[in-house]
């Protein structure tokens, strides 16, 4: 009894140690971003001794961010008048909707490829996967032509459509992998009981694929969140402008408004962080425990 308690305790110590290292590695630079966002330019230039927390922290950068300015190079910064709020909303909307669609569609398609047998299955699978490594800007001219003819330039639905199409291959591949790992006995039992495919999906596959679906949702959401090229080319006005393009506005002709960009970055990281925190519970064990009957 005492021996196993000790072993657990030591194990805990190791876990916390490794966690600390992992956090230092992951969060260290992010901490610097946060510090930059509340420092003044001159403090950032300090050398050789750097202060790890500014002596005079200031929220100015954040205030400028949301109040809007207009002056840029010679004086103050923040050309983002009104853009931060709009692009936050746009990016959230587009990323969540795209991720939701992709998750749903990929799970269905993943099941089809994992469990069903039909002619041409291999061909269709490769058809969907083949162009994944194609660099995006190869297709961009023709894509632009098509999208503008469809009148979808500078619309949220246009962006959602594009992102869904580009995220689908990976999503399908992931979900087919995850679905394949579900215990097939459960499905067989359900079929014997007279379930049709749709009911199978709803009552068995979806609940059992929660962690896989959460992973696909997160991956899709973050990929949309960070994408730059698609919003750059396919959006124009605040109607559909997204965060990544707004962030590029802090790069002036001669200087980068680093404190403001850092503040914008902190704000940009917050929504995905909260969403990911929420989704952790789905990424947690629960797929096969007690699933039989």
């Amino acid at each position, binding site marked *: 009894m005492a021996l196993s308690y000790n072993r657990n305790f030591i194990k805990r110590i190791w876990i916390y140690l490794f966690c600390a290292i992992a956090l230092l590695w992951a969060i260290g630079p992010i901490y610097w971003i946060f510090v930059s966002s509340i420092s003044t330019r001159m403090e950032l230039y300090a050398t050789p001794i750097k202060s790890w927390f500014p002596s005079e922290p200031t929220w100015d950068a954040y205030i400028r961010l949301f109040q809007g300015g207009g002056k840029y190079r010679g004086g103050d910064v923040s050309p983002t008048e009104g853009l931060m709020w709009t692009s936050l909303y746009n990016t959230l909307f587009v990323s969540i909707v795209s991720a939701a669609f992709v998750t749903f569609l990929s799970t269905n*398609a993943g099941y089809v490829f994992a469990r069903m047998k039909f002619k041409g299955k291999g061909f269709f699978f490769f058809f969907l996967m083949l162009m994944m490594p194609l660099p995006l800007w190869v297709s961009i001219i023709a894509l632009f032509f098509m999208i503008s003819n469809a009148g979808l330039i500078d619309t949220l639905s246009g962006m959602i459509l594009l992102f869904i199409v580009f995220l*689908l291959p990976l999503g399908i591949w992931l979900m087919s992998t995850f679905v394949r790992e579900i215990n097939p006995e459960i499905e067989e039992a359900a079929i014997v009981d007279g379930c049709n495919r749709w009911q199978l999906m709803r009552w068995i596959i979806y609940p059992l694929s929660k962690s896989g679906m959460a992973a696909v949702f997160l991956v899709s959401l973050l990929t949309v969140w960070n994408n730059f090229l698609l919003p750059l080319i396919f959006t124009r006005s605040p109607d559909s402008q997204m965060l990544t393009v707004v962030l590029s506005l802090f790069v002036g002709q001669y200087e980068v408004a680093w404190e403001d960009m850092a503040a914008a*970055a902190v704000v940009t990281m917050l929504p995905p962080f909260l969403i990911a925190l929420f989704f952790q519970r789905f990424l947690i064990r629960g797929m096969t425990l007690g699933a039989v009957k």
Partner: protein
Amino acid sequence: MVHSFYSLVLIDRSREPRQDLIFVAVILLPLIILVGILIYLPAVDSLITSFTNENLRIRRPPKFIWLKNYSKLIENSEFWIVTARSLLIVSLTLPLELLMSLGLALLLTEVFPGRAMVRTLVLLPWMLPPIVNGFLWGWLLNGEYGALNGLLYQMGIIDEYVTWLRNPDTQIIWVAVVQTWTRFAFPTIILLAGLQSIPKDLLDAAKVDGASSWQSFKNIVLPLLMPSFAVALTIEFIASFQIFDVIWTLTAGGSAGGAINPFTKTLMLYNYELVFRDLRIGLGAALSYLILFLSLGVAIVFVTRLYNQAVKS
């Protein structure tokens, strides 16, 4: 009674083949049409462009020169240098990233208080927009006022600030470090999800049988993780082979004219140069297809080998 998790389970549906077909069609057909129109049509269009000498600055109708673009690229040593450099970056980044994400995924599967928070915090690097990422590391690694220098100086490890990114060799190493830092969250998420599907009873049974944690890792966890690992490996290979953002902002950015640092030029930067800077979109399209073939080739090798290995065990 051990299920073979990798065999395609064929559920006998000889009773209702038509319903099944409808099911498959309803699900797959829209996706295939969508992908066909929005991915393949543009891809074919640029394939055709790759057979011409189209240049946006030179205003004459593009002429078909068929495979000349491809031969021009392959005959030029620049293509090979750039490819070798891309592969170098892959060889530096990929092992680092995958080991890190595997270790993290295993670590974060353990149950301990605060787990959810830690799991989310380690994902933060991936939530940072790429443009900020580049400037961030530029500031951190700066030789005049950078934070890394400050840290090492105050810890007494160095007594003078170092210009970390001065030489092309160190630039490449730092590019690998930053790329790893940027991307490791992605395979971590995938492996975390993959680890969830390993039935606990299997591991418990092994423990009862007296297996050490290393043995159960090697014989149970690793093989069952292979499919997710294969996906993560392939995607990360493509991401590091086609690296762009990190190199651009870390070593080539800051110049107004679009100059590209020739010492850290990788395939995608070369592609950018041809398509966006030189506006030789015929040649650029050809290069994109070469990149596609290279990426696909390696990806297919990875996937088939890993899948075969997994099936064997």
